[in-house]
Each structure stands twice: as structure tokens, then as C-alpha cells.
């Protein structure tokens, strides 16, 4: 039972993470391959502040703000690059952030990581706190999903889609493309920061190895599988991926082959990604449902 609560909490955190990436990838068409950086910045900021004795809610708010500032710092130079080059810049940015976590030991304790990150006081530590933490995550996921929906169905969201479809047309129609993309990245970074904060305060221990390219790929898969450019698709994708990941633990794999499970998992993800691209590029939930296509 506690195990199920744990999986649900992780799935919801990834749901928020996926929604945040969807704002950039799904609505604005920005292939951000370094999204984990903002998850990490949120997690580290909030963890360090929480450990220094600040109330958890305040540390989380500051963690989100730090992720947003980092988003702006990345967006301003990187958005002057187009297409593939933007993707490469974000990838490099995430690696820089990870190396910062590894090397700045005075602040982050390096590869040792940060143990003993507190939970919000009203939730309670350890297993006893699980139901309340789950409730906390459900409320935040709902809030984030509704915010994202408000955004997506607004003229602002429509303008983001115009940018995604055709930047030249967007400019010809008077849209400030750079400003729209920057705002999308900042918004996405703040929400990724929130997911990172939740992660840190839930798991209570973080280290640089939690914030690698693998996490970016995992969240990318959540968005693409669930349905990019839709409101609930990314959350659905997160649930499927996290449950699949956990289900693997129950496969009767002989101990000698245990070391093969992780690489095998990567292969399955890669295979699923290719299969989606070929068979259903819009994902499980389609952005175009309700629209006529013939």
C-alpha cells in the first residue's frame, strides 16, 4: 500500500515535470533537451534553503524563482539560435548545471549529495507522511494542470502555437517571437523547478546523478507518449512511464541478470519512442481531436 502511494507521488511529480516541458515542446515547438537543469536547480535551491532552516513552503517558492531566473538566463542567448542549435545549447546548459552540482562542493557537497532534506512540517517525515504528501502532490498537479490549460486555451497559448507552426507568419502577424518564446521558457522553467522542489523534499536526498540527460529523455518520453500540445496527455504519459518502470521490478529476473535491467529499460524506451514516431506521432491523446482532418 505504501509502495503504491510512493509510485503515485513519483508519477505526479513527473506529471508536473512533463506539463512544464509540454509548454515549451508541445505548445511552442521548442526542443529543450536540457529541461532537467531547471528540475535540478529547483531541487538544489529548495533543498539547501530547507536545510538551512527556512520554512519548506518558502524554500520551494524560492526554488521555483531560481529555476525561472535560470530559464531567463538560458533563453536570452539560446533563443538567438534556431532549430537544432537551440537544442544543442540547452543540452550543453544542462550538462553545465550538472557539473556545477558535482564540482561546487562548498555549496552542493558534490557527488556526496544532500541528505536529510526536510518535508513541509504539516506533512510529517517518513512513511507516515505519505498520504499527506500524496494529497499535496495531487493538489499541486491539479493547480499546475489548470494553469497550463488556462494558458493553452488563451490567446497567449494560440500565439505560442503560431510560433510553433511558422515563425515567419508569426512575425508577419505582429507577434514578437523572441518575447513569446522567452516567456514560454520562463514559465516552463518555473514549473520544472516546482517539480524539482517536490522531488527533493519528497525523496529527502538528492545528488548530481539524479539530474542527468536520462531524466530529460524520460520526461520527453512522457510528453511525446501522452500527447504533446495537450493538457492531460503529459500527465497520462508520466503515469504510464512511471508505472511501467516500477512494474519492471516485479519481473522474475534471476539475480545474475539484474545488471541488465537498466540498459534493457533504456532500450525499451528507445523502441517505444521510435514506435510512437512511426505509428502515432501525436501521442495517445491527440491535440487535434474534435477537429476535422479530411
Amino acid at each position, binding site marked *: 500500500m505504501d509502495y503504491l502511494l510512493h509510485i503515485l507521488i513519483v508519477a505526479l511529480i513527473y506529471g508536473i515535470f512533463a506539463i512544464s516541458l509540454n509548454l515549451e515542446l508541445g505548445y511552442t515547438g521548442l526542443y529543450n533537451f536540457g529541461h532537467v537543469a531547471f528540475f535540478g536547480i529547483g531541487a538544489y535551491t529548495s533543498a539547501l534553503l530547507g536545510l538551512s532552516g527556512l520554512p519548506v513552503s518558502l524554500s520551494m517558492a524560492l526554488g521555483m524563482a531560481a529555476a525561472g531566473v535560470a530559464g531567463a538566463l538560458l533563453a536570452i542567448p539560446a533563443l538567438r539560435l534556431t532549430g537544432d542549435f537551440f537544442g544543442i545549447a540547452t543540452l550543453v546548459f544542462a550538462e553545465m548545471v550538472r557539473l556545477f552540482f558535482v564540482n561546487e562542493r562548498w555549496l552542493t557537497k558534490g557527488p556526496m549529495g544532500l541528505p536529510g532534506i526536510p518535508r513541509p512540517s504539516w506533512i510529517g517525515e517518513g512513511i507516515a507522511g505519505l498520504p499527506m504528501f500524496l494529497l499535496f502532490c495531487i493538489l499541486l498537479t491539479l493547480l499546475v494542470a489548470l494553469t497550463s490549460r488556462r494558458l493553452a486555451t488563451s490567446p497567449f497559448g494560440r500565439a505560442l502555437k503560431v510560433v510553433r507552426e511558422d515563425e515567419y507568419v508569426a512575425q508577419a*502577424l505582429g507577434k514578437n517571437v523572441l518575447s513569446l518564446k522567452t516567456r514560454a521558457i520562463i514559465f516552463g522553467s518555473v514549473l520544472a523547478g516546482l517539480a524539482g522542489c517536490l522531488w527533493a523534499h519528497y525523496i529527502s536526498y538528492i545528488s548530481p546523478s539524479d539530474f542527468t540527460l536520462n531524466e530529460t529523455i524520460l520526461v520527453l518520453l512522457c510528453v511525446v507518449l501522452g500527447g504533446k500540445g495537450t493538457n492531460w496527455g503529459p500527465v497520462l504519459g508520466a503515469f504510464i512511464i512511471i508505472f511501467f518502470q516500477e512494474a519492471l521490478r516485479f519481473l522474475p529476473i534471476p539475480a545474475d541478470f539484474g545488471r541488465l535491467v537498466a540498459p534493457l529499460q533504456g532500450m525499451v524506451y528507445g523502441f517505444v519512442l521510435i514506435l510512437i514516431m512511426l505509428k502515432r506521432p501525436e501521442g495517445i491523446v491527440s491535440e487535434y481531436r474534435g477537429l476535422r482532418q479530411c
Partner: protein
Amino acid sequence: MLRIENVTKGFGGLVAVDDISLRLDNTGITGLIGPNGSGKTTLFHMITGFYRVDHGLIYFGDKLISRLKPHNISRIGLVRTFQQTRVLPFLSTLDNLLSAAPDQAGERLSSVFFRPAVVRREENESRERAMEILELVSLTSMSDQLAGMLSFGQQKLLEIGRVLMARPKMILLDEPTAGINPTLIRQLVEIIRGLKKRGIQIFLIEHNMPLVAEICEKIFVMDSGRLIFSGIPSEARRDARVIEAYLGREDRAS
């Protein structure tokens, strides 16, 4: 209304537009013609800010626009279409129009979250106007269809409708009739004339000569980056330099 002064643009060693000066006062419909590669589209790109001018100045009304970004030029009422039709394929036909509504409060994040009533009211007004425009371009029944699934001709009409949605003072059309059938061309001509009646200035690049002669009050002819003629269409047909640009010099054959 639109004033171009000594504008030049080169790409490497090639001078695409060479010291062009022209002005459009409230002419109604003005044509820009010339053989392929004569620099017409390059000139349009400069007027709308997509290319920077190397030398020269462009004014729209009293405003110097040759240093402005494309979106700022669009916002002051100078809106263009593209030579290759560019609808937003994965948005509905209606959303294609709505996205062009000018100066939307709902495109500011603060309004989206804190002034939803204002956004909703504005959105309803835009929707009404969009439906009128769909009626005008005969796409009412397609409003909820993905724009990418429309026929080529319908996409052309949608693109004109979208420009109209932006409440322009002047529109620049880059080959509006390229690749569409004669019936649709007639429909397009009626729409363009309707725009003129509403007081919108039209500047168009066109290769269909009879059409240009029919609808344009004034034309400019370009050849190899230079302006070689300006005046009424019937005179252009008798102008020696224009004939030469299109048919070649006679003595070249001998």
C-alpha cells in the same frame, strides 16, 4: 503613404535591389511586376522588415520603418502574405484567423490570469469578426477543419482572410493568384476590390498581366533590381524598356 527612398540590397556580389525609389499615395491597388529575379520579392521583404536594407530609407505614413522588426511593422498596419502560401497547418481555420487579431489583451500573461473577463469579451468580438471574414472568403463550413487539410486555393483565400483580420492599412500580396484556377481568381479579384472599397491600400506582385491591367490603378516595373517604369498599366505595354525587359532586345538575336 508608403515611401521608398534609394533603397539598395545586395547578397554577396549580387545586387538584388539597386537604388529603388518609389511612393504609393492613396492609389488603391498598385502592382509591382517584372521578370523572375528582378528583385520584387526582395523589395517586399525589405518593406516588411524581413530583410534589412543596405542603404536607403522606407517610410510608412510619417514613420521611418526601415529599421523596425517585422512584428512592429505589422502592428502599425502594414501586413503581408507570402509567395508560398503559409497557413498554420495544425491550427483550425478559425484559429488561423483569430491568431491574426491585432493587439490582443489575451496575449499578455497578466491579462490571461488576472483579467479573464476582458480577454473573454475581446475573444468573442474577434470570433464574430472572424466569422464575417470566413463568410467573405467562403470558408464558413471549414471553420473547425485543420487549415493544412484545406485545398490549395482555399489556403490562399484563408491567407487573405488572415491578413484582413489584422486590420491593416495596407496589404502586400506576393503573387496572390499563382497556381489557382480561373474561377478562384475571379473570386480573389472581387475580394481584393472589396478591400479597396474599405479603404485598404493594396500593393501586389503579380505575373498575370491581363489581371494587373484590369485591377491596378498604377504599376511599377522592375528589371535586374532597378525600377524601369512607373505609371498606368496601359502605358507600360507600350514602353520600350518594359517590352525589352520581358521580351529581350531585338538586336540580340541578330
